[in-house]
Structure formats: structure tokens, C-alpha cells
């Protein structure tokens, strides 16, 4: 049986290490975005009325694509004062991703996230889906 999507934050002295599991690759990327949003802002944000934004990114490999995705959400969030919790990954391969996202303006921001890093970065296919580890600079 495929595992449901989950994420948790692991011990790291200086930064935040994020671990993700998901049954499929699109769900893994959605879970990564949700974890980022949870870290940045408090829960309880109302549903967005903003129009969907289209995200199209590419990278040299799957691991770099995950970093690129998180950094795209960090950039958009900081410049548009938004947190993205409605995420739909419409197409993803090892090197390309297309998604539609909706953001809301949060009442209270929590942890500033500077960037996703390549340190300890891993995305791997497991018998029951995908798992990933990524360290965020906070």
C-alpha cells in the first residue's frame, strides 16, 4: 500500500532539516510546499481569493528541481507578501515542473526562510513512493 503524504522537521543545530514522504512525485512536491508554508506562517489562513499563479521551472536533476521549487515559493512569497498553501503540480519530470499555486496574505509570519540548500539533499524512489530530505536556511 502506498504511504500517504507526510512531512516532519528533523534536528539540525543551525537550520531546519525537512523530511518528506509521498506516494507520487507530484504529491512529494506539493508536500514540500505545504511544509514550507507551515514553517513560514501560522495555520488558519483563509482560503485564497487570489487568481492562480503558474509556476514553470527547470533544473539539472530531480534533487535540484526540489531546491528550485522551494526557492521559487520563497521568492514569490517574500516579494508578493504571500504564503502558498493551495498547490497543484500539473506536470513534473526529473528536470521540469509546472504548477498552479494560490497565495494568501498571512496575518502573522513565523520563521523566515532564506533559501533551500543542496546540503544533505536527497530524493529517492522507495517501494511505497518517494522520500526526500532538504535543509532550509532559516
Amino acid at each position, binding site marked *: 500500500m502506498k504511504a500517504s503524504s507526510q512531512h516532519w522537521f528533523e*534536528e539540525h543545530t*543551525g537550520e531546519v532539516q525537512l523530511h518528506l514522504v509521498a506516494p507520487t512525485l507530484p504529491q512529494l512536491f506539493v508536500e514540500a510546499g505545504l511544509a514550507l508554508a507551515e514553517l513560514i506562517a501560522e495555520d488558519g489562513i483563509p482560503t485564497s481569493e487570489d487568481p492562480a499563479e503558474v509556476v514553470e521551472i527547470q533544473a539539472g536533476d530531480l534533487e535540484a528541481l526540489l531546491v528550485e521549487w522551494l526557492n521559487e515559493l520563497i521568492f514569490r512569497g517574500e516579494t508578493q507578501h504571500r504564503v502558498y498553501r493551495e498547490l497543484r503540480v500539473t506536470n513534473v519530470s526529473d528536470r521540469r515542473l509546472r504548477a498552479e499555486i494560490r497565495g494568501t496574505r498571512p496575518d502573522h509570519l513565523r520563521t523566515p526562510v532564506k*533559501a533551500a540548500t543542496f546540503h544533505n539533499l536527497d530524493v529517492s524512489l522507495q517501494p511505497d513512493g518517494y522520500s526526500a530530505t532538504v535543509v532550509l536556511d532559516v
Partner: protein
Amino acid sequence: MPALEPRQVSEVMYELSRDFRPDMHVPVRVFADEELLSQMKRDHSLEQLVNVSTLPGITRAALGMPDMHQGYGFPVGGVAATLLPDGAISPGGIGFDINCGVRLLGSGLRYPDAESVVPKLVHELSRSIPIGYGRHGRLDLSSDELDRVLNEGCSYLIHEKHLGLDADLELIESRGSLPGADASRVSNRAKQRGQDQLGTLGGGNHFLEIQRVDAIFDEKAAQALGLSLGQVTVLIHTGSRGLGHQVCTDYVRAMDQALPRYKISLPDRQLACAPLSSAEGKEYFAAMCAAANFAWANRQVLTHRIRETFARVLGTGPSAALGTGEDSTLRVIYDVAHNIAKLEQFGNQTLCVHRKGATRAFGPSSSEIPATYRGIGQPVFIPGSMGTVSFVLVGADASKEISLSSTCHGAGRALSRTAAKKEVIGHELRKQLEARGIIVRCPSNAELAEEAPVAYKDVERVVEVVTRAGIAKKVARLVPRGVLKG
């Protein structure tokens, strides 16, 4: 890999020789006492420093300062010098917060007279300075003006925007402007992130503190720096904000993609680097210098806001607030970077010295420190954690040989943020600090708990190691009286 057990080579220095791992180019040296070394062994910082020793063109040794802890790629508190022209520059060796640093201001206010006015000062500062994540500043710059900040740093703000005094420039590392800066190498995305962030403190471990000088260890040096017992000082800890974060993001990506072209193989992808002589290396260096100028400009705008606030609260005129007279209200004592790469001369060699959570510590004979501090040494500020003491040191000439003219940058984290929140309850910490007479302004109790004193190493122990190593000398100790935490 064998166990990470560095051997003691002097009272406060431990070493792993370069045969510890086959890919090392230089040994690893760590400045620590037994307790600090044992704390380092509990996380992955030593392993990360071994990885740093594999950088192409690295020379001397990969160094760990006594406040070293686990980071990403480089450990925080790591120093590495590469030999020009072809030695590597690694954006991860500077970090995302390019030119995060510390500026110390000395006031004409003294305790006990200052006791009654500090609460009002803290309150007014919290109103005039945006703190925390997502807050933007009041300075409205056009894109051309932002480019001038990036290319010229503090001198543009002072001479054309009147945000400070000409005298401030001499008292900022590199006069607040690196000559290699080129705004055209900073992406539009980075400029978008930084557009409204000048004059903001940001979040995380950034803070602004009102302090009292409570001990002087070196009278002559303290006098030269303008520090005396009971004096009120203001310490600013922040960096290049989102602009610097994006510059690092952009160039880590570019260098990661360029690794095969330069046949560079690394044990950690976040160490992505390129020869400083390559197109990628030169472009990153120009962008990093521009982001460093932005950080100095950020601390300059904050200085201006603090001076305005002091003048308003104390009822002094603008000239006193600007610190133009003998009784200057707020004078820049110094401003030092602790996330940066600098080109420095060591004998007849030019080295690219990466300092990631480490501070430059030039000695008294250096011609690159302010004229007023020659014979004394470059000031170094070592903030403790929130609620604990901070130290003012001056660099020693011996630091050049001992530690690539580098020293520690703070207390260094000992606990993760999650662990800190398990041990500390934010609102109780706020009460404890206030019971000790320390006023705290912080957007949330959870964020306060993440930066609690228990999350950090003992700053006195860290400072003791750098003084025993002969890297720097203690000048003064500062105790917090009011804290604005980002």
C-alpha cells in the same frame, strides 16, 4: 572514515592532519577548549570542516572558530582561504546572508542616569524600526538608486541621501563599500527582494540591543574606542536581507551546474564553487561585493533611524543625534562583517578568505584599519545570546599567522530551534529577562524561545579561547538592557 578525534596541538588548538581523509588538501584546525570541542563533536560541524578542506586551491588549513556549529556546506564558524588566481570561491562559504555583521554605536548616555530613559528608547525604537520577517522599510529607492547603493555602499547614502556622517565611513570595515561590486551582476529577482528592505532588521537571530558597558579589561584600548564604564551602547546585528539570500541562491545554482566544466568533485553539493578566475567566479564575486555593500547600507540606515530616535526621546537637536560634536550622542565605534569573502594579502600571496560566521581580526599594525585604531587593533564584536553579555575585542597581529586574521563571531548555537522550544517557554523567558531588568520586544514568544540563552554556547568560554590562542584581546563587556529581536 576514522573517528573524528582531532589531536591537541596547543593549549586551545586541535588538528586533524590532511591524511585523515584522502580528498583533503590541507589539515583541519579548530580553536576550542575541551568543553567546546566536545560540543562540536555532538553535531556534524567537524565533518563539514573536513569537507571544506577539499575545496580546490585551499591553502594553509580549514579553520574552525570556537563558536563553530553545524551549518550547510561550511560549518558556521568556518574559515577557508584559497590561493589566487585559480583557487575557488564558494557562495556557500559565505552563506545566504551575505555580510551579516555587527555594528556598535557608542552614546554619550551613562548609567545610572540612563536607567529611566532606556524603556522609552526601547519602545520608540520598536516603533521606528521594522523588526521580524516580512516587514519593509521606509526608504523608497528607485532602481537606479538601488544600483548606486549596490555599487557604492554607505558613501552614497551618506553623501547623497544624508543618512549619516562622513566620519562614519572611516569606522566601517572596508569603509562600507567593496570596490569589486557590480550591480549588473545582481539579478532582478535579488533586487526585487531587497527593494523595500533597507533599514529593516529581519528575523531569525537578528537583533538590536541597548547595552551598558559593565567591565573594562583594557583601559588604553577602551579609551581609543571611546568606551567607558556605565556608558550606553547600541549593537545592531543584521545583514543583506532578501537581496543577499537571492544572490547566494542564484550563484549556488550557477556553480552547481558549472562543476563538471571545471572538473570539480565535492563531498557536499552545497560547497559548489568555481575558480575565482573563471566567468562564474568573477560574476559571483562582483555580485557578493554588491550584496555586502547593501548590508553595510542596511546597517547605515538603521544607524540613522536609531540616531533620530535618540534625538527625539532625549530632546537633543539633530546635530547631537548625528554625533557631530564632542558630546556626540551616537558615534559609530566599528562595523564588522561575519559572512563574507575578502581578498587579503598574506606575504606575496593574495588569498580569497571565506569567513562563514567568522570575523576579520586585523592587528594593531595593519594599515587597513581606521587610523584612530592603529596601535590598538581592529575592533571585533562578539554578541552573546539574548539576555547574556557581549564582548568587545581587538584583533592581534599574531592572528594573521594563527587564524588567517580571523576570530569567532558570537556564542554559537548549541541546541536546535526545536530543542530550544522544548526546553524554554517563551512567555516565561520574557518574564525572566524582564525580572533581570532587560526589556524585550519580540513579535512572538515562540521565536523568543528559539533564541533563548540555553540554545547557545557560553560566550565567555568562546571569548576566552580566542584570547588564549593569541588571536584577539578583550577590551570590554556589555550587558543587555533592552532587546529588539527580529
